[in-house]
């Protein structure tokens, strides 16, 4: 009997040894139904002053960080979102979300310096919606992240976004409420900001890539697009927007092309490329310029045929290395005088996220929600090392800022300043980027493979002295990922 008992005790102890740490980490991974992102994880000051991060009581509220409220709008439109079955431009039916009855939604065009005012009306998207202006460094209150910069707009409600279109370039907008589902199913559109004096000799085209239900489309159309009808010799700028979760391939068949802009920012002195492919980060944009007749290939999505076109060629094996493309130019700040240095190291390990067991993405060894909160002060020059050893590629997207790539795997950038808002960091690689902290608020810094974000690959950048009135969860059921 005693032996039996001792045996049982031993078995129970062994069980406790296996189960207790699991139960403890499981419990730690569960989040309350309502929380502020400012309560997540731990503060990382990056070696800078450890300023008090006030809570709800003092300092400027995220909600007050808006564009000049007294200024009149130059571009004004209403976007209405619906959950419905709709037809792609090429005729296939899709169950998803539309903006003004279609997906992609209408292209928003503004001229540099204009104030854009968009009234968002949610007619029938049950989870609520928001609009995030991907790549446009808007004031924080206009960033459109549910539970961080606003409450999700429920059915029957509306919300007005206002921002000055200061950055010339190619951008896009999409919902940032339950984004891994809403973006995938079509709640998105293109946003183009053109210079005051555009080059009249260049024809402008958009190629927005999106996969609906496994159907790869360009501008909402599966299969061949109508050729761009221009005379031979015309320069054509194709603004390629990758709205999917994985990288896209862009090249030109039969004639050279130039990469003239990346993530909205012009490349300095781009050189003609032949037999090279550009890998376009998920969420990112590249503007390529070709001379008619030409053909811009978009991998599995199809091609844009310009003028008489050209026969398609296989995807080139060699990639354009943006680290050394174009010519150097002066930066608006000096990365050598950095005041904060952060690490954003992405791994993968077993554990629990939202109480679910699995292999999850980690940031600096920690699982969501115990991730770093990067704290800066306005005016800081910030250097961030993004390192990935998770065995999968991650298109990292920092809201509200453009960062310049300083180096990859220790090799310094030698080309044009490479400005990014969406940067593909492959496993086994390390990028160092730098940015100026010039846009106060609370900003997401996450993987734009949106299911990865919903699996916890999300951190935030916050400015000292900012208060956060919004909550994830809560009455509006805010769920930004």
């Amino acid at each position, binding site marked *: 009997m005693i032996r039996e008992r001792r045996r049982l005790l031993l078995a129970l102890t062994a069980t406790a040894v296996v189960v207790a740490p699991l139960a403890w980490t499981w419990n730690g991974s569960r989040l309350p139904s309502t929380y502020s992102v400012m309560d997540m994880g731990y503060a990382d000051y990056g070696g800078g002053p450890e300023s008090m991060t006030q809570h709800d009581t003092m300092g400027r509220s995220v909600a007050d960080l808006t564009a000049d409220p007294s200024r009149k709008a130059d571009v004004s439109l209403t976007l209405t979102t619906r959950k419905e079955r709709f037809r792609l431009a090429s005729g296939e039916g899709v169950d998803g979300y539309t903006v003004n009855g279609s997906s992609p939604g209408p292209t928003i065009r503004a001229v540099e310096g204009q104030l854009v005012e968009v009234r968002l009306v949610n007619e029938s998207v049950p989870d609520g919606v928001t609009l995030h202006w991907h790549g446009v460094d808007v004031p924080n209150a206009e960033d459109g992240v549910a539970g961080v910069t606003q409450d999700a707009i429920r059915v029957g409600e509306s919300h007005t976004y206002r921002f000055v279109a200061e950055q010339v370039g190619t951008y896009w907008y999409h919902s940032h409420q339950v984004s891994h589902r809403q973006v995938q199913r079509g709640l998105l559109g293109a946003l183009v900001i053109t210079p005051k004096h555009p080059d009249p000799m260049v024809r402008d085209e958009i190629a927005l890539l999106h*996969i609906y239900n496994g159907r790869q489309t360009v501008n909402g159309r599966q299969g061949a697009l109508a050729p761009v009808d221009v005379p031979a010799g015309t320069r054509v700028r194709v603004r390629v927007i990758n709205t999917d979760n994985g990288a896209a391939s862009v090249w030109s068949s039969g004639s050279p092309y130039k990469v003239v802009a990346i993530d909205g920012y012009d490349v300095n002195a781009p050189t003609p490329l032949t037999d090279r492919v550009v890998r376009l980060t998920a969420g990112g944009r590249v503007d390529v310029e070709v001379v008619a007749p030409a053909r811009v290939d978009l991998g599995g999505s199809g091609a844009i045929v310009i003028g008489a076109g050209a026969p398609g060629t296989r995807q080139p094996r060699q990639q354009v290395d943006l680290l050394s493309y174009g010519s150097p130019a002066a930066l608006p700040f000096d990365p050598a005088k950095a005041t904060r240095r952060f690490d954003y190291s992405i791994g993968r390990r077993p554990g629990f996220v939202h109480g679910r067991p699995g292999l999850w993405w980690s940031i600096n060894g920690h699982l969501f929600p115990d991730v770093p909160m990067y704290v800066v002060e306005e005016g800081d020059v910030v250097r961030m090392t993004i390192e990935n050893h998770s065995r999968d590629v991650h298109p990292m997207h920092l809201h509200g800022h453009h960062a310049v790539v300083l180096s990859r795997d220790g090799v310094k950038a030698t080309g044009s300043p490479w400005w990014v808002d969406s940067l593909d960091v492959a496993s086994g690689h390390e990028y160092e980027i730098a940015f100026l902290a010039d846009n106060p608020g609370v900003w997401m810094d996450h993987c734009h493979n949106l299911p990865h974000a919903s699996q916890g690959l999300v951190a935030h950048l916050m400015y000292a002295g900012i208060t956060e009135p919004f909550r994830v969860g809560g009455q509006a059921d805010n769920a930004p990922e």
Partner: protein
Amino acid sequence: MRTAFRVLMYLLAAEVLVQGMAIAYALAGMGHWVDQDGGVVDKALFDSDNPDFPGVGGFMAHGMNGTMIIPILVLLLLIVSFFAKVPGGTKTAGILVGLVVLQVFLGIFAHEVPYVIMLHVLNAFAIFSVAALTAHRMGGADRDPGGVATV
């Protein structure tokens, strides 16, 4: 508990078969889609929620099964082994925990270094064999009047 131990062993062996079938179906479906329907598989499609070819669910099933269900199963097996009074049961369960951890690691590592997948397949046979043989031998012991199963 002894029966639970044996059933879990068989379940684990069955899960290895399910894993093999799921991934083979997925690859065959993708091959068919490319070959017969002219589909193009690229990174963007791979990372979209719902590529539209038969068998695509096999990729998801393989991943979910391999990173969640099988690890839970093998931990349950370890816990049950503490109580089951199977000679060498805890040792075998411990070995299986180790093999499953190795298996998950090999599966993920193979994304980066493709030939590692061959070791992943070999290890799958190892897990299957240990689990199935252990369960099978226990059956033999039950039938044997001189076996350890008498209470």
